[in-house]
């Protein structure tokens, strides 16, 4: 009996380890390459640890790697991405919270229809929005600017945040609202004094999801990014695929890892919220 137990456990953990290997392998390969000199990258196996560890690729990735003919590393793109992501997150979360509040607590037939059309609309492939977006941004004279991208990410982030907040606010008891209205509290007072203090968790979930979406976005970044300040994923792809000069594989790997760090750290630090947000979003989708 006891042998059987051990045998099964060994099998279980072997399977777990094999899968762990699959999930870790590409990151391991990138990490070791990023600490090797270019010469060593060419000579050694991709799975070998560096013989001489060097941090130079990382320094270069941050402040000297070339995107086209522009060799300033990924620092400017990194900063530019945060300049887009932070306002977009604030706007999308704020609008989503307001929408959710109205749709869940001031229900009207109109609000229900609006929510339904928005939900269905969130399944439309983003490619359909590209040309009309280009036209609109040109009209507003914000084509290829950070403002344009902030607008885009706010607009297409709102359906997600609205859904999260609406679904959460529906679970709050309606008596709360009735009592507040009886006491003469108005629309905004109820929101800021009763609803907002009850929603720190869902707000964190919304922030994480919108931030990751904006940060990891490639399609809009590629289409509407400003060339010198393009968002990170578009810049990374451009640096790695760049056809100019010698391919510096070690630097490129450091570039990819640095670009992955913000969302990776966000996931590791706030894992619980991350998972909750995704499962919540999914179940309702």
């Amino acid at each position: 009996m006891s042998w059987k137990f051990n045998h099964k456990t060994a099998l279980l953990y072997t399977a777990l380890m094999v899968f762990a290997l699959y999930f870790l392998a590409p990151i391991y390969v990138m990490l070791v390459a990023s600490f090797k000199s270019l010469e060593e990258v060419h000579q050694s196996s991709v799975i070998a640890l560096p013989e001489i560890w060097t941090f130079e690729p990382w320094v270069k990735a941050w402040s000297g790697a070339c995107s086209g003919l522009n060799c300033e590393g990924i620092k400017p793109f990194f900063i530019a991405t945060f300049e887009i992501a932070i306002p977009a997150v604030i706007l999308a979360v704020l609008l989503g919270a307001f929408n959710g509040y109205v749709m869940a607590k001031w229900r009207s037939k109109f609000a229900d229809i609006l929510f339904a059309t928005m939900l269905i609309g969130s399944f439309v492939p983003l490619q359909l929005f590209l040309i009309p977006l280009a036209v609109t941004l040109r009209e507003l004279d914000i084509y290829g600017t950070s403002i344009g991208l902030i607008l885009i990410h706010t607009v297409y982030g709102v359906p997600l945040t609205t859904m999260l907040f609406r679904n959460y606010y529906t679970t709050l008891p309606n008596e709360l609202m009735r009592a507040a209205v009886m006491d003469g509290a108005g629309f905004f007072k109820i929101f800021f004094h009763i609803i907002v203090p009850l929603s720190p968790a869902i707000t964190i979930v919304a922030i994480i999801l919108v931030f990751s979406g904006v940060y990891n976005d490639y399609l809009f970044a590629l289409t509407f990014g400003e060339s010198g300040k393009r968002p990170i994923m578009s810049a990374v792809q451009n640096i790695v695929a760049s056809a100019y000069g010698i391919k510096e594989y070690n630097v490129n790997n450091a570039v990819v890892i640095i670009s992955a760090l913000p969302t990776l750290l966000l996931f590791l630090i706030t894992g619980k919220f991350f998972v909750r947000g995704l499962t919540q979003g999914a179940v309702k989708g």
Partner: protein
Amino acid sequence: MNIGANQVKASLVLIPCIVIVVYFIWGFAGYTAYLSFTKSTFLPNHQLIGWHNYETLLQDPRWWVAYANMFIFGGLYVAACVIFGALLAVLLDLTTKGETLFRTLYLYPMSLSLIVTGLAWQWLLNPTSGIQQIVRDMGFEEFNFNWLVSVDYAIYMVVFAAVWNGTGFIMILFLAGIKSIDKEIWQSARIDRIPTWRVYFYIILPQLRTILLTAIMLLGFQVVRSFDVVVALTNGGPGYASDVPARYVFEYFFTRSKIGQGAAAAMIMVVTMIAIILPYLYFEIRRKEP
């Protein structure tokens, strides 16, 4: 009176949302639908030409490669994510020690962008540096694994990388489902001496039907919009062997300056999506009605 004023405020607050839904979502979708019937090339143009763009599109062999790839990629991606996701969820449920560690290891790729995913796998899948070379270095000189640069197999490598990114999320959905099932099942199963794997396969997993459908829907949605991972891993190559509709549309819009034809391709993506989702909705609604 007070209630009325509040209702007015409630409606005013929805204005940005109305603009988004009416203009930025449905208006834009409608405009692209309209463009697919126009002679638009470099810039939108309002000369209507009927189904011409669709005819040109459907005669383009390249479109058919991209369109077929969407189904090859989609079918395998959805199947692999669901099977491995369910399997990993069961394995984690069986684990007594280290569940958090393994769960984190399986889930972290989800936080990475598809660009990072594609670029990360480029290394291991590239024949001159990756798995092929590692195995050859181990003494198997004849070993070949060059699918990434093969016309016939490059799309399968895209699946490989995308599954890496998508499995963890499906695993979490299944794991949440498994944990929500009544633990008494295990007691009854023990009394009846049913082996563990049979309990999972015949009793627990069939109860997670809703989660399965949600997972398939979400993954299917990912498939239609998949763009990043293809660009990062193969950029549609070699040639256009691993192209997908999302990339095709982008290229016709912005590099080939054939907006009309790109819009027609985008509309076919939408129609395909609807064709996939409708039966699902139909069955779901019918199931709930009786």
